[in-house]
């Protein structure tokens, strides 16, 4: 799996890619206290509310997710969230136009898919998204097989897929593997353009993580194009500009994701609610830490009781940086917890929100994980000159 996919190793990423399942509204709400502005998390929260038949709350969550997606430049994800909101609460013309205007303010045009949506007029966008069908696929699903008829355009909303290309051998009609590549959010696939050509798939496309796709059939898209000729131009441009952006985005995403990979040992003193009760001392590891919080897997040998009991507790975190004679000391709160199995024994993974940390500790933590700007820049400069293909 390449680095474009590694970004899913964060806690939120693990929820999105399906490796952690949260099926409790309460737990989601606790998690949202730690990551209040994470649109991906809100999307899943909204999905859960919809599943629980809390439709108005779900619509509100979809709406907020759409707003946050716009702010982060994720046009496609914003549109899909809005589709779900509007399926619950039909929008007025005014609301539709307000959404379109908001999209315009946050529009990014870095990638073909972003440009595709950014250049739509309001009527075109509405005509297009009416036909757009979001759908989840579990990890390991075959979305499209070699030899299938090409009749659908897919946009990757979240998650990652692997595309394996083949070509037919002239003798015997056998196929031989040619290449593979990964598809991540804001990529698209499905060779349906030019519309006049009827093709069959030259690749297998299989999900690596849980994936959300937004798809539109070739026939529906052709209908939209007949009514709105500008769409055909946009579709043509979408396909033409695909290849030139892949490498650029690969590099950009790689740089964004090279963090939080080193396992760091932590000692937690978890304070009990009852006065006078002795705090619980546990140790654990985090491979997912930022300056705002950490996801910590507690050591299996500690008896913590049910994981739910840890949520809400205040905690003092001690991190013994091997490079420092002193320990870092951080005050925080457990805002989320879940039971997991470690080495065959039941333990807990907890999400901790950091609340108090000295400026020096903050900088030491930063240096421990990443080094200085100069070191980082030199690594990337050398990467560009020695490794870029």
């Amino acid at each position: 799996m390449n680095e474009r996919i590694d970004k899913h190793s964060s806690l939120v990423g693990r929820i999105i890619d399906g490796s952690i399942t949260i099926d409790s509204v309460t737990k989601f709400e606790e998690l949202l206290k730690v990551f209040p502005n994470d649109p991906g998390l809100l999307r899943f929260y909204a999905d859960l509310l919809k599943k629980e038949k809390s439709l108005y709350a779900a619509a509100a969550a979809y709406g907020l997710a759409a707003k946050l997606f716009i702010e982060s430049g994720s046009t496609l994800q914003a549109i899909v969230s809005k589709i779900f909101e509007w399926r619950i609460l039909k929008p007025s013309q005014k609301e539709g136009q307000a959404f379109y205007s908001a999209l315009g303010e946050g529009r990014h045009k870095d990638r073909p898919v972003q440009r595709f949506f950014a250049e739509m007029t309001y009527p075109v966008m509405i005509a297009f998204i009416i036909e757009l069908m979001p759908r989840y696929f579990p990890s390991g699903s075959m979305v499209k097989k070699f030899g299938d008829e090409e009749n659908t355009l897919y946009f990757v909303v979240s998650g990652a897929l692997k595309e394996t290309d083949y070509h037919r051998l002239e003798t015997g009609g056998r196929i031989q593997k040619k290449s593979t590549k990964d598809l991540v959010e804001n990529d698209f696939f499905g060779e349906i353009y030019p519309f006049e050509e009827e093709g069959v798939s030259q690749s297998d496309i299989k999900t690596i993580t849980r994936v959300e796709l937004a798809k539109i059939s070739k026939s529906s898209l052709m209908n939209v194009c007949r009514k709105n000729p500008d769409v055909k131009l946009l579709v043509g441009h979408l396909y033409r500009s695909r290849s030139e952006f892949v490498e650029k985005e690969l590099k950009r995403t790689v740089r964004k994701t090279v963090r939080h990979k080193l396992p760091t040992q932590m000692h937690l003193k978890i304070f009990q609610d009852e006065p006078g009760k002795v705090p619980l001392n546990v140790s654990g590891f985090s491979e997912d830490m930022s300056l705002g919080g950490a996801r910590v897997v507690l050591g299996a040998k500690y008896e913590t009781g049910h994981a739910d009991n840890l949520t809400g507790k205040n905690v003092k975190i001690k991190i013994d940086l091997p490079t420092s004679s002193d320990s870092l000391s951080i005050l925080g709160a457990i805002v989320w917890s879940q039971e997991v199995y470690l080495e065959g024994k039941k333990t807990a993974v907890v999400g901790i929100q950091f609340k108090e940390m000295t400026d020096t500790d903050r900088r030491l933590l930063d240096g421990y994980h990443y080094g200085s700007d100069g070191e980082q820049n030199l690594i990337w400069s050398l990467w560009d000159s020695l490794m870029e293909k």
Partner: protein
Amino acid sequence: MREAQDTEMESTPTIWAVGGGKGGVGKSVVSTILAFWLARMGKRTVLIDVDLGGANLHTLLGIKSPPRTLNDFITRKFGSLEEICIDTEEKNLRLISGSSEVLSLANPHFSQKVKLINHFSRLDADYVVIDLGAGTSFNVLDFFLAAHEKIMVLTPEPTSIQNAYIFVRNAVYRRLSRLSSKIPSLQTLVKIAMDPKNELQVRTIKELLQFIQESGGKDVAEPFEKEIGEIRPAVITNMVKDNKEKNAGRIVQIVAEKYLMIQSTNLGTVSHDSQISSKVSDMVSLIKLDQSSHAFGNIYEIVTKLLGD
């Protein structure tokens, strides 16, 4: 902790430690094949698993459930490391299986690790290969710094390169931190230098040594310089698919030289080997694999190079 080489006698084994920061770069596989080739060359070898994240080296040697682990030694069920060594299918190769529980969570005191290293040095072997596992915790860095050969494994991926560099960086500061532990003023200086945005504008080890010299004199600075000079990691770039990817180790070398004054050795590269990946997933002993593959061949050359040094 004293360097193992300081205590070396004719009969003590040479210790190779294999680390590198990031998980999943193939440290365990490289450790196992290094040990395999040493054994095949007639060197009595013990492979030790101190992987903190998950001790599983035994599975790479086809051992499903190790009868004894390092934990049994640490908790004094057995009095010597010899008693917990497990024979493998390969003549001359024995294994000490790991126990992540004790090492990772109890975080043995520095003196306990010194003792453990001393016990490693007393093993009846020519070579001891230690698989350190991921991370840059005290345990990993202390074992790494104590070894005769400090081997770093990385892959041609940005995260791996970055983490391998941070691994060396933290190793250097760990050594400096230990050295300065008895001189409070220097310890403060080292701590300040670790802050990447410190007000003293100390951005490199060279600048730090200049500060140490200015504050404590040349006699104080020289031992620091000497100790840093002795950290000479040997870099292996693993899972290489083409010529460009062979440059990954070079990146770490260049940055470490500029910022940390570290002179590292490029041990070479190991080709990506799908045979190994699939067999590791199937828990098949690496010893049973086709040893004429590129990866095995590459590691054979690395062992030859290390033995020649």
